[in-house]
């Protein structure tokens, strides 16, 4: 990578983040100046801010062919960063829209302010190519998320959720920081590319292999927490259940994707020479994560917990793609890009899908007052549109075409097959079967059950907009996958070199 010292034109690469900072300021002012009854518009303001940042990202940060390290190598505005940035901004926008009507958080300016701050942190997680910058951005987004998870002040579960998330997060973050300090010790530099060049191949050169592997493990532990991989997943169900549902949605998609962005960046730029070792670790994690996630999800009666375990299982599928990276690259073919491309594609489509699912859950639990699966009984008779949206989301999670989940899984499996990881494909296929079972149970309740109450579920305009955009997105990304695969693979290529 070509490191460039700072010049003013670099600021353009941060245009979306600058827009978000302005948007945060606007939210703060609006919060102070508006009366209590008009505060529900804050969510729309925040969503517009994310929308403006999306436009800015598309206008100013489309990456060129050569991506250089800007700000003296602190950040790198490449296709990978671009793809993840779009994903975070989109997830932020939808989260703001679906939080708008929430009884408590929808009226609080702080909520949307902190949400915006968290997205800024995530954007920098995708951009950073420097240990210090990376750690700061991870903390910036995480601390905001701890606060968001605990933001229902009346609810004990929310407080538990925030505290639990904070304690787990603080601990793993320390482990990660320790690993970073070791990396600096090995290389004498904080730039990821320089560290990668210094570490080189396993067993070759001046750096002894064993300490590097230990450092590698600290990275896997630290980020395994963020992506809720087994055995670092224990926080997820409780935090997901207790947090306000819009934040659960946001945690399950954006926070997970951000974790993967950093994991990919570190593994592929700092440890490419150790790929033979870490792909083995990742493959084992993938197997554990999807199997345990799915087995536990089958036993849930609460829809938020079910989706929490399902989201753990989904992380397992994504890890499967990452594990497929190594074997391919050694025989010099394009496969490495397939593996990483599949990971990026899956994260994107998973974001769309899960936002739809949580969007419907929020509406249903608002009128029934609880999150039990039984409360979805007869939803198709009350609100056929919402039932259809939930059907789209659940089938996409289950990997059924024409929805994006089908191609997402197939792409991951194909990459793994190319890497001769057929045993992992078999494990993934068995897991897909287990998962379909519990998604079908929810679908059955929605379509077969008798509604307790015939009234339609009230839905506001911003909400309908968000659900429509995401649902159609799930179908579109699944059917016309070509262009999205192209972006995902370009992102993969950028991670690789």
């Amino acid at each position: 990578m070509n490191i460039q010292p700072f010049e003013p034109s670099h600021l353009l690469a941060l245009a979306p983040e600058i827009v978000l900072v302005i948007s945060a300021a606007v939210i703060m002012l609006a919060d102070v100046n508006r009366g209590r009854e008009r505060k529900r518009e804050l969510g729309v303001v925040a969503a517009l801010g994310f929308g403006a940042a999306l436009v800015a990202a598309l206008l100013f940060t489309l990456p060129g062919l050569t991506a250089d390290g800007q700000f003296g190598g602190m950040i790198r505005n490449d296709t990978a960063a671009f793809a993840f940035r779009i994903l975070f901004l989109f997830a932020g926008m939808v989260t703001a829209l679906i939080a708008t009507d929430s009884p408590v958080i929808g009226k609080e300016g702080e909520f949307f302010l902190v949400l915006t701050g968290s997205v800024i942190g995530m954007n920098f997680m995708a951009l950073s190519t420097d240990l210090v910058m990376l750690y700061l951005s991870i903390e910036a987004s995480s601390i905001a998320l701890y606060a968001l998870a605990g933001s229902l002040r009346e609810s004990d579960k929310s407080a538990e959720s925030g505290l639990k998330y904070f304690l787990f997060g603080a601990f793993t973050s320390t482990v990660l920081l320790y690993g970073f300090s070791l990396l600096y010790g090995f290389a004498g530099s904080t730039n990821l590319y320089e560290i990668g060049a210094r570490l080189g191949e396993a067993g070759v050169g001046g750096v002894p292999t064993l300490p590097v592997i230990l450092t590698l493990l600290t990275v896997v532990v630290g980020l395994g927490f963020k992506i809720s991989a087994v055995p670092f997943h224990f926080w997820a169900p409780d935090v997901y259940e207790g947090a306000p549902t819009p934040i659960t949605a946001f945690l399950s998609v954006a926070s997970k994707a951000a974790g993967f962005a950093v994991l990919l960046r570190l593994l592929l730029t700092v440890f490419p020479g150790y790929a033979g070792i870490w792909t083995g670790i990742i493959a084992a994690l993938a197997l554990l994560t999807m199997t345990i996630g799915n087995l536990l999800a089958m036993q849930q009666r609460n829809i938020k917990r079910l989706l929490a375990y399902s989201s753990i299982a989904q992380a397992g599928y994504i890890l499967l793609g990452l594990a497929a990276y190594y074997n391919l690259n050694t025989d010099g073919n394009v496969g490495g890009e397939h593996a990483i491309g599949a990971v990026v594609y899956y994260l994107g489509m998973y974001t769309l899908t899960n936002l739809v699912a949580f969007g419907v859950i929020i509406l249903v639990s608002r009128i029934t007052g609880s999150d039990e699966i039984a409360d979805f009984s007869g939803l198709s008779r009350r609100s056929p549109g919402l039932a259809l949206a939930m059907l789209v989301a659940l089938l996409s999670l289950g990997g059924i075409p024409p929805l994006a989940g089908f191609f997402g899984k197939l792409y991951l499996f194909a990459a793994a097959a190319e890497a001769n990881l057929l045993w992992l494909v078999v494990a993934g296929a068995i897991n897909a079967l287990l998962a379909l079972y519990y998604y079908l149970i929810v679908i059955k309740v929605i379509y077969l059950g008798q509604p307790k109450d015939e009234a339609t579920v009230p839905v506001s305009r911003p909400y309908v907009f968000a659900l429509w955009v995401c649902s159609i997105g799930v179908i579109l990304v699944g059917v016309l996958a070509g262009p999205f695969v192209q972006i995902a693979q370009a992102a993969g290529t950028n991670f690789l070199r």
Partner: protein
Amino acid sequence: MTFPFLSVITFAPLVAGLGILLLPPERKDVARATALVTAAFTVLLSGLLYFGYDQAAGGFQFVEDVAWIPQLGIRYHMGVDGFSLPMLLLTGIVLLTGVMISWGVEDRAREYMAFFLILSVGVFGVFAALDLFLFFFLLEIAVFPKFLMIVVWGYPKTREYGGMKLTLYLFLASLVALVGVLALYAALPAGARSFGLLDLAAANFSPELQRWVFPLIFGGFAIMGAIFPLHSWAPDGHVAAPTAISMMLAGVEMKIGMYAALRLGVYLLPEGAKFWAPVIVVFALVNVIYAAYIALIQKDFKYIIGFSSVSHMGLVMLGFATLNPLGLTGAGLQMFSHGVMTALFFSIVGMVYDRAHTRMLPELGGLMQRMPWAGIAFLVGGFTSMGMPGFSGFVAEIPIYLGLWQGVALDPINLPGFMTTAWFFPLAAVISALSIVITAAYILLAVRRVFFGQLPAQLAELPDVSALDKVALGLLSGLMIVVGLYPAIMAPLVESGLRPVLQALGGG
């Protein structure tokens, strides 16, 4: 590019289905009429292709080929040959008759018709897909309409269990096959990887690879065709389903399994097929005899038909296992013949149940007096099922037995000794022919206990079947007689479609 017939056939039901969903719920008549017109349109169009196919030229015709996801070598590639055309026609006919006999459905009729049409999208497309990604894409589209239709409109006592069981078994089947297909995909050289059927057929995979992938692909699709011991989903699921879905699932979906077992299994992996053929014979024999026996001891009219399907699918598998022209052609004809026959059977069971509100044999009887059309059509189906000359079953089953008689273990290395002996295939032919006797027994028993004998008092005022029902019954029984009396309308076409498979096997 010529007119995209195959895409139009495949996606017309999707467009119509989505259109029906947009109607106001009380316009049931419009929903039904739209479904009927769409189904008739697909029959017309597939009939047009059936008779427009140029047998002399052979190969895949009416081809559509567009790049879809180029990064993975995935194309939108469709085309039909002599093996898929009868299946396409069968799908259209089952769709049409299914709509006709579902005219009386009142509960959420709009959604019923829409989902039924959407279900057929995957079925039509699967028979035309020449890209394996497209194949699985279309195959799995059928998952949610079939699950929802069984669970929502099925037989209340078992629909939740039957629907879930059927859906999960079929999903398992496709996953097993998908793993096999991915193994083939990965075995292609990097840079030339593709999901194209023809690319994979030209790849000449090593015999070792073929031998271990074949059980995945053939076995996976054989589960979809209800192979023993993974067959129990078929009777349970088909009995739980509403009538039209039973017709579609037993009549056509099981054929997808068989169709793909041949096209993706035997055709792509001829060495694997040679290796495993005698093993298939053993499993298929169990299917044929065991399922027929279970059908014989059923008390539930619908379960008799459910198990009879399992038994007949065993015959198709036996035909495939012969790997010779006679057996394969017989299997191809049997797929069509059984599809029509089982659709007819399930429609009659549905008509009886809708009127009598029971399917238990002891509570039925003498229905010939009340619903003569159904009774006569059931007899026609029964004769087909038994393989009587003059009906399509004869044309299909006799070649299977003859082919089996001539069969030899083509790859005798590594097989258990008895499978390579000279008497193995002839013995299998004799045993499978025994199924004719058991079939005759359960069919005649059902005929006697449902349609003849004493009409119970509570059924004395049973209404006759409706005019549309009669049209559907006439159409289905007529087809079996036409193919039975004039096999030249189908046999040469099927033979032409099987020629590439036989070439891959090294014969023909």
